[in-house]
């Protein structure tokens, strides 16, 4: 297999000794089929065991390895050396505090995922223990794509609004709320409305669409947020006019 030399420019930061982040260069002999994650693993194993970064599955599903690659929020296991120039800059995800090197602090987004009540809420009695809900394929398709989010948080790194205002709930968490709102088994939409219609909720989104562009799983949080704005407005007028709310 052909080897190509890549110059990796990796952001380093150890809060115990560095006043500010800095860049370290590594020259990595990459096999032609490697992803950037393989190059980072080469650095870790052969060049510098002190480099810190998160990774696990190496198959685009665990969501650990989101980083900035040449300025773009990306999964390092899904970004291939063959598609990149000879010089590659790797930085921690934008818009997050740096914990160490390429590792960012995720407390805020973890709290936001929690905040939107991402679980089935039932007002009616639950179905019998051994009976499943019936859900047509059409009903599943309404929210299926929104279930694909792997929480890699690339969308938060791309989101200009989150960059400006950390109170904004942000793309992945809003898309997750919408996923449950659209699920025919759920009856918690009105509970979530207060959070979503709040000033930090959907109305903060300026519809730049950067979140959907960088999403490695094609979840399209931007579209979800626009739908929620419409839903929110409808719900508001329904409540004003005393009409019963329903599932759209």
């Amino acid at each position, binding site marked *: *297999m052909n080897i190509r030399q890549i110059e990796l420019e990796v952001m380093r930061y*150890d*809060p*115990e000794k560095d006043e500010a982040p800095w860049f370290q260069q590594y020259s990595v002999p990459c096999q032609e*089929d490697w992803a950037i994650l393989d190059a980072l693993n080469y650095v*870790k*194993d*052969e060049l*510098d*065991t*002190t*480099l*810190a*970064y*998160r990774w*696990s*599955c*190496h*198959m*685009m*599903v*665990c*969501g*650990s390895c989101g980083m900035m690659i040449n300025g773009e929020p990306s999964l390092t296991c*899904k970004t*291939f050396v063959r598609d990149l120039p000879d010089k590659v800059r790797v930085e921690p995800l934008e818009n997050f505090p740096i*914990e*160490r*090197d390429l*590792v960012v*602090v*995720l407390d805020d987004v*973890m709290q936001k*995922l*929690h905040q939107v*009540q*991402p*679980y*089935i809420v039932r007002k009616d009695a639950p*179905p019998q*223990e*051994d*009976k*499943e*809900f*019936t*859900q*047509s*394929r059409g009903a*599943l398709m309404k*929210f*299926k794509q929104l*279930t*694909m989010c*792997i*929480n890699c948080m690339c969308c938060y790194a791309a989101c200009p609004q989150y960059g400006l205002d950390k109170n904004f709930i942000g793309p992945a968490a809003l898309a*997750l709320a919408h996923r449950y709102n659209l*699920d025919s*088994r*759920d009856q918690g939409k009105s509970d979530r409305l207060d959070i979503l219609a709040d000033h930090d909720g959907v109305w903060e989104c300026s519809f730049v669409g950067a979140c959907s562009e960088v999403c490695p799983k094609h979840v399209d949080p931007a579209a979800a947020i626009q739908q929620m704005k419409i839903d929110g407005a409808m719900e508001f007028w329904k409540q004003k006019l005393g009409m019963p709310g329903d599932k759209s």
Partner: protein
Amino acid sequence: MEHIKADVVIVGAGGAGLRAAIAIAETHPELEVALISKVYPMRSHTCAAEGGAAGVKRADDSLEMHFNDTVSGGDWLCDQDVVEYFVEQAPRELVQLEHWGCPWSRDDDGSVAVRPFGGMKKERTWYAADKSGFHILHTLFQTSLQFPSIKRYDEFFALDLLHEDGRARGVVALEMRSGRFFHFSANSVIMATGGAGKIFPFTTNGAIKTGDGMAMAYRAGVPLKDMEFVQYHPTGLPGTGILLTEGCRGEGGVLVNKDGYRYLQDYDMGPETPLGAPVFKSMELGPRDRLSQAFWHEQKKGNTVETAWGDCVLMDMRHLGEQKILERLPLVHELALSYVGVDMVKDPVPVRPVVHYMMGGIASNIDGGTPMPGLYAIGETACGSLNGANRLGSNSLTELLVFGKRAAAAAAVFAVQQDGPDNDSAMTLQAEAVVARIRGLLQQNEGVESIAGIRREMASSLEAGAGIYRDEEGTEATCKKLAELQQRSSGIEVNDKSNVFNTDLQGLLELQNMLDVAECVAEASNARKESRGAHQRMDYTERDDETYLKHSLAYRQVGDRPRIDWLDVTITRSQPGVRDYSGDKK
């Protein structure tokens, strides 16, 4: 050191750990659960499971058939009381996930769809396209968020089990972001840390699967059971080892050698089935052990295809058509395209066997209980003997749920019945000794060995001596090599001296865990002088029920190789017989 008191400590927040945490929160909301994980729950390796979860669903299926498939699939090394309970509870647990919002794929009538899987007599694998484990994990994680009694400790790396008078008392863990040590005390500890595929060089497993829970239990004197049984999944992508789900074959994909010949018919899994019409329990729907062994023979015969990543066979799915592939197998389609540049709609994909799953693990019973009171084990890190000598695909996701829930119930009851620690200061001393050991590692300078170097030697030695086929000479050489590596690993210097997210230190601790687990795999492979399921010996080619219808137990001996003991298999109604994978045709 921070001291955290909980009622139940769960180590690992994948499918099993989360299911257990939810079960305790639902039934005992007054009990505080400390859920410790070295990664955020969504990163747990449950997310990588693709094909689905088994549970009887169709009217033409039965618990009896699921039982028989599992027991014969496991080559009669399953504990049959465990299998009985499992098949009975499986459908209910899968419905429970449905109620929690799991986006299962659906049939035309809106009911949950099931697909065929290897070694299964009927369609009984519930699936969410080919991301079943991912959806199960996220459903459980999101559901868990509504329970305030579950207190999560994300990115806390558990170091060692604390125990007193033979009873589990808690764990010591390292908070990755701060480098601070935490002493968690609890009356019940549940290990749910997953498998240890990373002890092998070529595996579907993620970086995090380093056998931490197994090693912690083993160091505390608890035996590891049936460690010689390592599952090779027959269809991994060459190079990366990424899994291409058994669902590919369940949907009708076939395996061919370099001549385009469906070679499985030469290995007692024929006759050849018509393209696009797979027959249960034959050919490509045979069990994983048999398919991986068939590859080994094809390679020896020179019938494999040479690729840039080594010898492969080809999985041909073209006859399924683009629509079916994209609807049912979108992830594997994307993975094959990205990692080996093959569009499976248009071309066959090169595949080869890859280490996937440990049937062995912490010796546990139907309650998840271990020989150490207060210590429970569930999921891949446990060996509750559901899977015997060879696990059937799609039984393990359901296992997480069924035994996650059952062990949780047992652990909760145990926690309530016990008094608090008799001797808190003794536990503090024990915790401090663990911390001193870790600090000692950090202070070591001028190491002559490297983590990556020892890891590579360990993995290649294990593959050579305890791979798909084994013999005395090979296993003995591997046992000796691993003992040597144990010694040499003390010469590793941790270059990173930072307290903050020190993955160099974590890497060394994971390597130590892996070495312990690897030694048990090699020693048990050496001791079992028969061939059964995934354990195939070239020098003992037959199954020997007279001597080895037993579980192996590997015990730690300080400064020496593991000691192997034996434990009877529980047989309730199925006497050992012939594993028949000729389908409906005789």
